[in-house]
């Protein structure tokens, strides 16, 4: 399976309206900011967060990062509507997570003016990032030397005065990787990748899944400073993007 990037968010097209929101630092808008530390939490289930995009807007995936849906035994749904869920109410995708890890839902691209996240269950979950948006999955192959799980531990090892180890103290583990899509067509680069890069990938966090079959849990990644597009004569190029992410232990 090919690596995929998840970006953009229909919920950010306008002010999302929640059916209920718990008091405290919980706001429906927090779902849209790609920050894993700002949260929305309802006070009653089923709960919905609905947005009116103003006109029909498309999506083909949903990236969810930071949640306790599994702990709270909740089910997560993505729904679309043409009339603010009056008579049109289409279930686009759904999942009942089996862990609190980040996950993605993918589906055939579909357009709706009204998009909705719906939660069912009995106890209230919290969610940090819900991005009903686009996925970028180029046709080319990934470079062979791509390192999906290598990481750098930032910390120090302690030895006592007698030279015996006392343990390791870690600040955090950081993953840095560089992915190169071989022979991407210039058409795809111009029509899909660059718009996504300029609008989102350049400066905002995004979802990153290097191999949905081997390692389904997506990262929340940011791009490094350099993007290269090495040109070939056959109207193709190698698109190379550096990325980094924090490898947490708590989600």
């Amino acid at each position, binding site marked *: 399976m090919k690596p995929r990037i998840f970006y953009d968010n229909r919920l950010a097209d*306008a*002010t999302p*309206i929640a059916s209920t929101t718990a008091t405290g*630092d*919980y*706001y429906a*808008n*927090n779902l849209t*900011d790609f920050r*894993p*530390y*700002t*949260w929305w*939490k309802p006070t009653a289930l089923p709960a919905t967060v609905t947005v*009116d995009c*103003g006109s029909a807007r498309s999506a083909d995936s949903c990236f969810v990062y*930071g*949640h*306790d849906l599994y*702990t709270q035994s909740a089910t997560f749904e993505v729904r679309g509507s043409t009339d603010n869920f009056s008579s049109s109410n289409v279930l686009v995708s759904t999942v009942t997570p089996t862990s*609190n890890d980040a996950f993605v839902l993918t589906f055939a691209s579909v357009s709706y003016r009204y998009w909705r996240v719906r939660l069912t269950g009995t106890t209230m979950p*919290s969610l940090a990032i819900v991005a009903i948006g686009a996925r970028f999955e180029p046709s080319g192959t990934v470079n062979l030397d791509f390192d999906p799980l290598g990481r750098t531990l*930032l*910390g*120090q090892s*302690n*030895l*006592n*005065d*007698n030279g*015996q*180890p*006392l*343990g*390791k*103290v*870690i*600040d*955090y*583990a*950081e993953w840095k990787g560089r992915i190169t899509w071989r022979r991407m067509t210039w058409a795809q680069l111009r029509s899909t990748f660059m718009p996504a890069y300029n609008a989102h990938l350049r400066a905002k966090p995004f979802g990153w899944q290097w191999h949905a079959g081997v390692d389904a849990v997506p990262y929340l990644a940011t791009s490094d400073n350099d993007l290269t597009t090495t040109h070939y004569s056959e109207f193709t190029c190698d698109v190379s993007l550096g990325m980094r992410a*924090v490898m*947490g*232990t*708590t*989600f």
Partner: protein
Amino acid sequence: MAGTLAYFDLTYGGVLITYSGATVVLRAPQESQDREIAWALELDTDFCANTFGVAPCTATGVPCYNTFKTCKDQPNFIKTVKTYKFCSEGMLAPVGELVRPYIPRNGVATAPTVIQPGEGLAIRSQTKIALKDEPDSDYQMDPYRDTRLSGSTTTIQDDFSSGSTSGYTVVGTGASHSIVSGAYRLSTSAGNVGQSRVDGAPTHADGLFEIDIAVPSVSALTGDVGLIYRTTYWSTPASKSFGYLMQLMQGVIRLAVGSNDASGGFATVLSSQAHAFSAGTVVKIRVEYVGSRHRIYINGVNYIDTTDSTWMSGQLGLRGFDGSSSHNWDFDNLFFQYAISAQTVGGTFWRRFQARNLYTVGRHARLRRGYVVNPFNWNDFSTELFVIDAISGPDRNGNMTVVLSDFLRLADKAQFPTPTSGKLSADMENIVNAGNVVSGTTTSVTISDDASPTDEAYTGMELYIYAGVGSGQRAPITTYDGDTRTVSVSLQVAPDTSSSYQISALSVNVGDDRGGQYGGEGYIRIGDEIIRFTSRSGDVLSWPNSTYRGQFGTDRDDHSESDNVQLCKAWNGDEPNDVLVEILNAAGISSTYIDLAGLAQEASDWMPAAEITTCLSVPEKCSQLLKELSTDLNLMLWWDPAGQKVRGKVNVPQLAGTVTELTDDDLMGTEVQRQDADRITEAAQYYGLRTATSNKEELKNYDYGEIRIDEDAESANEYGDVRQDVAVSRWLSAGNTAHVGALVGRRVNYFRDAPHLLKLRADPRTVVEPGELVDITTRYLTDFDGNAATKSCRITKVDDRLTHKELEAVTTTFGDHRWGFIAPSAAPDFDVASDSDKVYMYISNGTEMPDGTDAYRII
């Protein structure tokens, strides 16, 4: 040889104590060899409990941010606490908790408290935390974020005092407008809608609209009055020719969405709420429409909160309709703010925080350090309490710096007693008049001819017969006749011509509106005289008789108009721990944050003979007062951030059974410094300051002194020099002879040999607390044979860097003798005693114990 009496210091018959610091718990992740560390910071800020414009808040217009700096109704500000949380970058926040990962790696710089045995008050700690900044949605900080218009906004206000209807365009059959009694009147004809457009507001998206509406009679409310917005149709209106309509109707307020054209029929009601309007009253209506959200308030109470996005822009105006008759609808105090463009939020988190939260200094902050495990648990963090000293920045990298101080730093800023601004309103002579009595009875005394000829000149003063018949009597003068030089008094014995008298004032006036600073009773200083006053009426401080003057060894004196009157603080035979607590309280440290029980225990155990009698007659820094007093008590005083208390500990031994042991196996680096400059051979203490206003630095001003000399240390075979430590105490009076004797003895015992300062690095699993006595065995301090020696050391500094701990400890000797505590009953004989039993003292009949070790000594 049974365990019997023996103890450290017979003077006090002290008892065994144990370390009274915070309970130390080693957390599981801390013991682990794989530790993922993190810092967290919690900043407490003031936040108003009110909702803007809702009683008791009377503010109107653009909402505040619920901070005092931004408050528009400060008299009704209700202070509560809002906490902002930050953590190390890379630490993933616990689910559902807003903790901003703004602390960069190595972003916490700590300068922890440093305990100084013999110096009293510890060096106060300071912690600097770097914090990153970023654009932010503002939802956490702004309670009105959803409805606030930001970015480019325009405000229109009109109280109609100009008398002109210019700026308003009326449409509708038979409709007109006018200004009546300073209010805007929209007049409508029977059965026709009247609308008045606010011309100054162009087509816009979002708005905040407030206006007062006079409630018509009930019968008139067969129609409706209200506001229309996002309206694009301004021709002759029909029943639905508006975007949105806020309607006041009989018993109902509702929001409807219209057709924005000339359609008739019924509009679609989005929300309807019951409300009983009282005819003849005025209601303040507030409408907020931002994006698809619409909220409507009546007199500050939210009635409607709904969403609809049928119309997203247009103009606004006023509307009235009465189906059966013509009607006048009155409006006043229009406030309107609108935004042409979509809502945006400028600035970054810290820029906004700084602008809105000006008053953060002195508020509480908690620094949490700990270990991240899965599942996340704050119990794996320790929590230390500080006060916010400063929030500064940004630096060139855009980072902020939060400076936290321990609570004792408050004592560096506060003064005690509080400075007072009173001044004498008139000259105050020591003796206003004196002489021999001309004639007298028990109720009337004629005084010298040179007394004042002015009636009532001495009324309220004291007549004191100091010689002759009736000597020693004091009485207040109730009236004075200037013609006859006669005072009215109440005496037990009538004076005669042999009697000599003095007249003195029994009160002072400290100036207009300044009396409130002095409380109801206390001591004041005027010049070099201390006066005790027992009552206050307005700006006048009074005392019963002249013996209340010249307190604390000072002399009665003449004083001049405009001389300062400083409120004093006095203690008379008080417990030393009570005095410490009072000074800490004066510094702004409430008793909640003072280890009262621990201080009381220390006082009971180690300073039972100490009592405090002194008078502070000028404002001084509380930290200086604490340093002086704690030094005089041989007390170490410091802030324990983890225990969240000010703690005190007398510099004496503690029970060996509680002592932590550290060896080279626990330490990651050791440095030893011999502190020879601290060594002394003699200790002298002067005490009993003659007068409260004398120079406390000059030895000649003290009545008493105690000195201890260690002749062995001064001998040629030992150090062969004389090093004197001379101290003075204004806190200790004559009744402290026993305490001072012990104080100088302990001081010589402790400092006769130069202590060693050990600078240690330890693994995070090492748990020691400031002030604790520990046994350190290291090859850097050896016995005569070169083997690592075990030294009893006082931990003076703990800098927990999370990656490791930087420790400082000083060796303690307590006289370099074997000491012990009084053993409990039924203690075993020495022959069969365990090592832990031998912390108690055993009596030897020689210089050694049966096992060949040194005998115990009473020191």
